[in-house]
């Protein structure tokens, strides 16, 4: 089950993590779609996990979550824990339950995005803002989830191309 990962693989996915992070948090990097902005780290973590397995997916998820923690109004480590679990689960699902294709990526991204949106909402809104929590979910959380899903296929395609190139190098 275990295989040695070359340094190039870690570096490549590390660079992708930084690029996706920089773009996700850029103040005017994305136009809003249905009033929401994409949480790019979610499809990124899921896609990487589908090509590297549960361990690689977990570590990349943790790295992406730490990046998220710098700018989020949530305790540092919250998103890292969440994305680590998502990366691990997505890698396991791909290995034992689903085929590695675009439809599976879309399905996993949908589930992962909902998990992140709900966790964010529960933490940030329900604990600190009991009044009007539903409004925030409807006007921010769900539009963000919808916009994220739009990006799940392109992100999966990018990661598939990256994985293919890395495999060819090996």
């Amino acid at each position: 089950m275990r295989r040695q990962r070359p340094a190039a693989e870690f570096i490549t996915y590390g660079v992708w993590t930084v690029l996706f992070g920089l773009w996700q948090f850029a103040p005017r990097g994305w136009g809003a779609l249905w009033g929401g902005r994409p949480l790019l780290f979610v499809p990124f973590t899921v896609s990487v996990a589908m090509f590297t397995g549960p361990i690689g997916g977990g570590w990349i998820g943790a790295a992406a979550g730490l990046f998220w923690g710098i700018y989020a109004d949530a305790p540092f480590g919250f998103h890292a824990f969440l994305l680590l679990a998502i990366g691990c689960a997505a890698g396991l699902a791909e290995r034992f339950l689903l085929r590695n294709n675009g439809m599976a990526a879309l399905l996993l991204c949908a589930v992962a995005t909902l998990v992140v949106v709900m966790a964010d909402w529960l933490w940030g809104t329900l604990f600190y803002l009991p009044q009007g929590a539903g409004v925030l979910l409807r006007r921010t959380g769900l539009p963000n989830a919808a916009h994220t899903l739009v990006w799940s296929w392109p992100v999966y395609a990018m990661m598939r191309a990256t994985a293919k190139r890395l495999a060819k190098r090996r």
Partner: protein
Amino acid sequence: MYGGILLVKEFFKSRGFYALATAAGLLLAPVLYAAFAGGVSLFPQKVLSVAFTPLQTAVGGTAKEVGEAVTSLFGGGALRRENEALREEIAALRAGQVELDSLRRQNEWYHEFLELKAHHPDYRFAQARVIARDPADGFGNFTVNCGSAGGVTKGNPVITADGLVGTVYEVFPTSAKVRTVLDPQSPISVYVSRTRDHGITAPTAAFSSEGLLRIARLERTAKVRRGDVVVTFGSASCPEGLLVGELTTVYAASDGLSLSGTVRPFADVFQVIDVMVMVDFDQTAKE
């Protein structure tokens, strides 16, 4: 099927999984600590923040240029110019309105940013730029590229030429996190400039998502009306008289003892890029 279960079992017994589980535990510990102890900024967060601030600043600048180029490409250039002209016109009208209030009360606290500085030599600002916004945040909170190295401290007001945007709530060496006036976690003491009726901002999710701010605890007998200008009341960390917004509605509060209202902030908190952090002011200087 049986083979699959065996493989899953093998995975959960692998060293890789144990390493991952340890990492998960380490990540969960500060989360639980923060839940009980309130906001904490950890050393790794500070290190990462210092490392990524220059990169995020560069990307933020580029993204702005790209966004503007795309807007111009699709014919938005003329609209944007018209919008800017209208904004200037609105700003001039607001200045006139508050000038009248100021004259009546011999109170000269309202000025556009440069004038504000000229009239308040005690105000010290640190120039900053919004470098990151968390898309998952519904209140427009953001991070600026100026931190403790630039003199920024927790509680500093963040303003634009239009008015108050928010307050700093977490400071790193080269960056700082800002909670906007729309965030329910940052209530501000305010008063209505024309009548000097005191109130407090009490944002709600419903109003914030429309870019509006709720103001509460206004005296029931207050003669406030739509269009009145709301300014900061002043505190140890925020000077008196910073523009907040314009009253859009006034209604009796549910308790029947006070008035509430909605305020449209002058500063566009969801779009703002260039801001000023007020790092110091003379607390003894009264308007």
